[in-house]
């Protein structure tokens, strides 16, 4: 499967001072870009697969019937999250994450209850998780496509720091279908969510990117959903964003479109 070798090689190559200071010829810089991009994509696949297995593993016999996702840092997901935490502390870094992911999957097989009498229903198929490199210009294939079809989305956030943290997560979306969204946390608790319009400079950047990289598959969002995520130390949490339409929206879901004045 995917691994982190090529990223390690690219990063080690970039230890050369030219890579850090930009004192290289243009074609060499392009080569640096190409290598780092390829390595990054592969490493992201490793992380996404490990997270995906943990999330899937956590839903079997998870909290509250496991239907709304894992309780990061609590409930049956805790062992997996803790294992991930332990894995992260190992010197091998992402290698250990890959290993933890495999362990979680194996554990899931063990725990599936053939009689179906245990808690929660197993998720039948892998969850296609994606990383997005252009969040800073409100671009993300997965979330913009899902939102443009009026579908909800899962956001998995892993905290690489060894202390719990609170951070604002911003998710690019398309408002083509709706502007009203509902966010819920790992325990299914409601989270205040805010819809932010994209600044003009970002719109201009999106046009520039589309023109320069015509073949780029990334789709650009016209707004961002921002919510505050509580993340455990060296662990992960999952959040759910669901579009609201009609009555639910009128009932005033927790999203706030962020008034703008000039």
């Amino acid at each position, binding site marked *: 499967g995917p691994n982190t070798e090529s990223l390690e090689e690219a990063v080690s190559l970039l230890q050369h001072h030219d890579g850090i200071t930009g004192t290289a*010829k243009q074609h060499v810089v392009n080569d640096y870009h190409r290598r780092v991009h390829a390595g990054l994509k592969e490493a992201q696949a490793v992380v996404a697969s490990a997270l995906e297995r943990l999330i899937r593993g956590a839903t079997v016999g998870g909290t509250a019937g496991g239907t709304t996702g894992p309780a990061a840092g609590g409930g049956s997901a805790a062992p997996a999250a803790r294992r991930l935490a332990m894995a992260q502390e190992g010197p091998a870094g992402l290698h250990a994450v890959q290993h933890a992911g495999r362990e979680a999957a194996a554990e899931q097989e063990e725990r599936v209850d053939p009689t179906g009498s245990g808690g929660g229903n197993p*998720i039948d198929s892998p969850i296609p998780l994606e990383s997005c490199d252009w969040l800073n210009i409100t671009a993300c294939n997965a979330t913009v496509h899902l939102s443009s079809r009026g579908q909800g989305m899962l956001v998995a956030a892993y905290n690489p720091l060894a202390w719990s943290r609170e951070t604002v997560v911003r998710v690019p979306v398309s408002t083509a279908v709706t502007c009203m969204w509902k966010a819920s946390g790992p325990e299914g608790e409601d989270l205040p969510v805010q819809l932010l319009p994209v600044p003009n400079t970002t719109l201009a950047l999106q046009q520039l990117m589309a023109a320069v990289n015509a073949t780029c598959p990334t789709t650009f969002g016209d707004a961002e959903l921002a919510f505050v995520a509580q993340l455990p130390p060296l662990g992960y949490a999952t959040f759910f964003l669901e579009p609201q339409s009609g009555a639910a929206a009128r009932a005033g879901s927790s999203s706030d479109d962020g008034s703008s004045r000039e």
Partner: protein
Amino acid sequence: QKQEAGQSATQAADAREAAAEAAEVAAEEEEVQQGWLENEEKNEHTAVLDSGLVRLEFDTRTGLLRSVHGGGASARLAPTFAWYNSSDGLDSDENRGQGSGAYVFRPNGRYDLSATHETSAAPGWRSLWERLWGGGGGGGGRVPAGAGPVARLEIVEGVNVWEARQTFADWATLVTRLHRGQAAVEVEWTVGPIPIDDGLGKEVVLVYDSDLGSGAQFWSDSNGREMLRRVRDFRPTWELNQTEPAAGNYYPLTAAMYLLEGGDAGGAAAEGARQLAVLTDRAQGGASLRSGQMEVMLHRRTLRDDLRGVDEALNETACGCRNCDCPGLVARGRHWLLLAPAREAARPRRTAQQELNDPPVLAFGPIPRQIGASS
């Protein structure tokens, strides 16, 4: 007679005291009146972002940030863009035959983005701050009549994120952001494509002008570890003959730089002193060329090779993308500003530095469907 004399003396003393008191009250009233006037004026032209932890005040006439309040300290603060004209190395006495390029920063004058004339860092230079508000760092607080807008300002408010979006030019914008529950002010800068139709190479900096009395010193990180004290036009280990007032005072920033009011050589600060820190999300160059001011270099575009080995100008039109009339590279990044009383500033700065360096890893996907689950 003695008694009468005594009485009149006390009466006179009383009268004098009463007069002094009356004068004091009048002065106070006048001050309050003045304050009100200023506040009146300020309120009328002020846009406020308030996250509960930090409050930012923007002057809607100039579109600039005016002050930051939070974390137990307040300061006047106005981030603005400026650019250095890159030397072309052709004029031996102007730049001693050395041009700016990939290896070398050899500025030939500096311009505030809003100014049409040079605002060099040479002595006698007055910062935008001073020109707008008069007096040394932080004086006045009044915008002189006729001070035009420097940036177009748009305010976005919500429950989690508060933003002030400033457009200085279509190639230089700032989004100053407050997040619920966070003490740091996020400044997202976007620079480029840098225009070169005037035939000048440019090195664009973000200048944080404040009213901190930091004198000639500031602190910058050493590889993200301890913070080292820097003193303008000075080197601790040799007698410096400073020939480059701007370039000669630039230092690498891989994590942060900060100003410390009245700090001594060991960095200990007097009671009530403030510290203003800028945290960077990548390796950049930075300096403090005036008391109360920090600047960080964001983006460069030079038109000539500096003859130090790359054999190419730092000009990204030939960036190898699909069609070669690429308008040039755009750079976008983030700074985090932290203002705190100097004696407690290290903890939040260090924590924020770590959080900026290790952001959460995000992954997105559809909401998993369970077998038999209704939704």
